């Protein structure tokens, strides 16, 4: 029996109300099991062996002595591993051959998987893997990324490589003020707390994986293609995922685990080590960006050029589309953007929180700050004067663009009006103080998803969707959405996620997860209520309704749909020691309907803190001689610590879009966008020196000559 009454007023009390994580207690008490922890009888352990050369061929693997080691069950390599198919196009395009392990003897980068050692215990597998001697025919490699690589070429990825309108040279020539600057960002890594892990087994004719990923049906699709299996014969479950940030798709360890369980016919677990993650989990490409801005004396842009170079591996074309930010943010009569890449003997980079926007906004928003300085304009006023009324490249209308409101609210709360624009004039003991701001945006997309909603006779409901909660609070957010859609309190709704058997759904990525899943949940719940309104008795197995949002998403009016935000930062710089410390940060966002204020704030803050990390700390160092990393662990690769995170606040303004069926926009990535620029702009305001290369480390601050305008 249900309490739903036809015609009752719509309850929307759950969405917008702070709710602790449903699985929070399980997580903090250790009851929540992650992919590397779920126990299985007869479990074997695989350990990946990675290449120690950056380019060449495998000449031989001395597997005999390793096979004789205690507990060793098998060694898979290119000579004996099952063949896989890579000539397909999956959910997000063609597969990166890096995940198609052990198919040939070529080594395209250091850290390339050359073998999997499987043993009875993890310790035995590791010892044997480390004992495996691999002989290589080494070839000269090139890992040197720089601004002017002769082999660079424009590359599309998920968007056109190049957009051009207007005569750039003429517009620059006729501009009263010109900024022409180059910016660089280093190779950066996403290292989720939970390492990449999978357990694969054949169970009753089905391949089953307990896996840490950002989309269970995505993984199913890739594995089905790779192993030429019927997708229905694969099940991937991902109950809890300890962070993803773009890194958790199909990677070498899952494919190797499936190969091993197929060969051995027993469950096989493969977990990446932290060090292995640096070469196998993807990363953000370094970027070298040039921004040219031309403006009238009043700051109105006449010319905008943003060119970005990133890198990819020799085996797969991945583009970090940093130059695309301006296609949304600012217009000019001459408007040129271009993403180019160069292919080097390095691992394939991948999506890392706000791909494109994070490094691109650093360059563009820092350049805007330089333009404001040259125009003698407040940086916020400069941005307000350049608010476009339609998509600068697309020409489409904005489905809401509340950036000015973000700046106004942020300025009010940050105390921006009292700011002295002069750089290098505020001191607190040994510290020079400065403030900075920058704009942020991120695409608010949606992708087709399916969900089911089931009404039970006891008045409760179950919603099933193959969503992934990678630490964002998605399970809780979807519960609130479902509760409102079903017009019941959240404790009457159980949302089950992380199981590919629930049907296709968008991945937790592109800031599209919650928006896409909520849409499917809303439709399923709405149709279920309609069914229940007919008054039929609910049978013991319940009444289930399935939704598919493909048609609804296809019916969306074309528009520029984005979240926006304004970032503010205050920093302290000791120019005698080069130390930069953040004193406070504020981010104000216009990001649609906020489902769960508690976890949403965490998402925004997490992004902003990552922005601190990006601005001041993170840099993976690649050794040119060996082609590998130096210090590939979380002691050598610095991320912000608690002590680096100051008074930091995130909040949001109303951002309704009545024309949008869900009104929810993504918030997973926008928190990092613009954060590094706001910090770099604040460092300039503190010191008078423009730091255009991240991270702004003490050695860089110290190497900037006193009074020099550039660094």
């Amino acid at each position: 029996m249900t309490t739903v009454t036809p015609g009752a007023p719509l309850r929307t009390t759950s969405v917008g109300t702070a709710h602790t994580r449903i699985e929070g207690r399980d997580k903090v008490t250790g009851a929540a099991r992650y992919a590397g922890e779920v126990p299985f009888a007869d479990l074997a352990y695989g350990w990946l062996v990675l290449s120690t050369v950056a380019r060449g061929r495998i000449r031989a693997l001395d597997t005999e002595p390793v096979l004789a080691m205690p507990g060793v069950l098998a060694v898979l390599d290119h000579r004996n591993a099952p063949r896989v198919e890579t000539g397909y196009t999956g959910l997000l395009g063609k597969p990166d051959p890096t995940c198609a392990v052990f198919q040939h003897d070529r080594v395209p980068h250091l850290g390339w998987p050359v073998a999997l050692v499987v043993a009875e215990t993890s310790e035995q597998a590791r010892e044997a893997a480390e004992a495996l001697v691999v002989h290589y025919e080494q070839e000269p490699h090139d890992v040197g990324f720089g601004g002017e690589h002769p082999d660079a070429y424009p590359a599309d990825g998920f968007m056109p490589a190049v957009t051009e309108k207007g005569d750039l040279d003429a517009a620059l020539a006729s501009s009263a003020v010109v900024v022409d600057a180059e910016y660089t960002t280093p190779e950066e890594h996403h290292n989720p707390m939970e390492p990449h892990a999978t357990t694969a087994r054949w169970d009753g004719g089905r391949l089953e994986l307990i896996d840490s990923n950002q989309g269970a049906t995505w993984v199913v699709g890739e594995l089905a293609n790779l192993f030429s299996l019927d997708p229905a014969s694969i099940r991937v479950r991902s109950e809890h995922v300890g962070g993803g940030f773009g890194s958790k798709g199909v990677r070498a360890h899952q494919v190797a685990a499936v190969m091993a369980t197929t060969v051995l016919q027993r469950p096989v677990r493969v977990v990446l080590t932290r060090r292995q993650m640096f070469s196998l989990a993807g990363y953000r490409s370094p970027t070298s960006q040039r921004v040219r801005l031309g403006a009238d004396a009043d700051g109105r842009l006449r010319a905008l050029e943003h060119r970005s170079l990133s890198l990819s591996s020799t085996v797969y074309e991945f583009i970090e589309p940093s130059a695309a930010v301006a296609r949304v943010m600012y217009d000019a009569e001459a408007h040129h953007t271009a993403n180019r890449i160069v292919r080097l003997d390095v691992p394939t980079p991948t999506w890392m929180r706000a791909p494109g926007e994070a490094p691109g906004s650093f360059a563009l928003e820092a350049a805007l700050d330089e333009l404001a300085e040259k125009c003698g304009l407040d940086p916020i006023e400069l941005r307000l004067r350049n608010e476009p009324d339609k998509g600068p490249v697309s020409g489409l209308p904005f489905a809401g663009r509340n950036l000015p409101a973000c700046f106004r609210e942020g300025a009010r709360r940050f105390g921006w009006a009292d700011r002295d624009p002069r750089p290098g004039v505020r001191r607190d003991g040994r510290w020079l103080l400065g403030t900075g701001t920058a704009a942020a945006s991120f695409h608010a997309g949606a992708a087709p998803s399916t969900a089911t909603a089931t009404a039970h006779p006891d008045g409760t409901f179950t919603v099933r969707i193959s969503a992934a909660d990678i630490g964002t609070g998605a399970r809780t957010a979807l519960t609130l959405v479902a509760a409102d859609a079903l017009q019941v309190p959240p404790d009457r709704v159980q949302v089950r996620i992380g199981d590919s058997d629930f049907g296709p759904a968008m991945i937790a990525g592109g800031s599209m997860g919650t928006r896409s899943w909520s849409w499917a949940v809303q439709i399923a719940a709405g149709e279920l209520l309609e069914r229940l309104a007919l008054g039929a008795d609910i049978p013991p197995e319940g009444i289930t309704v399935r939704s598919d949002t493909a048609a609804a998403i296809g019916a969306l009016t074309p528009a520029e749909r984005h979240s926006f935000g304004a970032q503010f930062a205050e920093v302290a710089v000791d120019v005698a020691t080069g130390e930069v410390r953040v004193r406070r940060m504020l981010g104000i966002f216009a990001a649609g309907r906020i489902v769960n204020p508690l976890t949403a704030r965490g998402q925004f803050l997490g992004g902003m803190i990552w922005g601190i990390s990006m601005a001041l700390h993170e840099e993976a160092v690649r050794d040119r001689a060996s082609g590998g990393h130096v210090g590939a662990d979380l002691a050598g690769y610095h991320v912000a610590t608690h002590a680096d995170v100051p008074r930091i606040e995130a909040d949001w303004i109303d951002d309704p879009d009545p024309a949008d069926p869900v009104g929810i926009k993504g918030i997973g990535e926008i928190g990092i966008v613009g954060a590094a620029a706001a910090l770099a702009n604040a460092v300039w305001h503190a010191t008078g020196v423009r730091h255009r290369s991240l991270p702004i480390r003490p050695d860089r601050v110290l190497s900037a000559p006193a009074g020099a305008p550039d660094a």
Partner: protein
Amino acid sequence: MREFDYQRASDVAGAVALLGADPDTRFLGGGTNLVDLMKSGVERPARLVDIRELPLDEIEPTPGGGLRVGATVTNGDLAAHPEVRRRYPALAQAVLAGASGQLRNMATVGGNLLQRTRCGYFTDVTQPCNKRTPGSGCPAITGEHHNHAILGASDHCVAVHPSDMGVALTAFDAVVHYATADGPGELPLADFYLPVGDTPHRETALPAGALITGVSLPPAPVAAHSRYRKVRERASYAFAIGSLAAALDVQDGVVRDARLALGAVASRPWRAAAAERVLVGAPADAATYAAAADAELAAARPLPHNGYKVDLIRNLVVAVLSELAEEAAR
């Protein structure tokens, strides 16, 4: 995992006997460095002798105002000890500037002195490293070295010693006490670490088979007015890129006594003796401090990417000595 034997020693003589002359046996203190190195394959001991239960966990005042610190005193207890904080504040500050609370509660004084460099080539067994594999080469010299040595390095190794504690101990003329099968011995910390030369794998003058039993700090009234400043690439939980332990005694505007030691500039904590010679007897002003720093840094041989350390150390010396002098004048 490579298997190893584990034994627990209950007294010093027993620990020394257990170690014997076996080059594949290591003493295990807090394990905060050794265990990491075992995981990464840099250390492959066949046997560990756990010395944490040895009766070496006392901090005792010595006549005249010094201290004797047992080898198994944890970093956390050392930094919290009232007499350490009163007599050698820079030592307490140095310890607190290192690692994290959890690590400091495990790490021991003896182990801290024997910890290995965090050079990324040393800790990666797939890379050459003269310190780890003598004769294999030093990729840091032409590779990543922005946090490597500017003083006392050689063509064979440019790694820096990571200890903060050791920098303060060096400034205060600490003496390392040890036990061997032949009886006890001692080494001034100034002589404890060997020059790099062409033997970077030989790091200390500790006799083979010796167990560090403690560290003594001679009385040093100047140390009561001392400071440790550490510069690192984030606010916490990072090794120094340059640090300074300094003590200063100023009377009537003249430096009467000074102690200076530098961290993250050399293969060992670096006593800035040349700087001290410039300071003592000179006017207590910024020009003197700068001249002192310059005297020490005259021997600096920076690499292409660590030249900033010369400026950093110079600035640190001037800033910290100025602070100490200002505070003394108040």
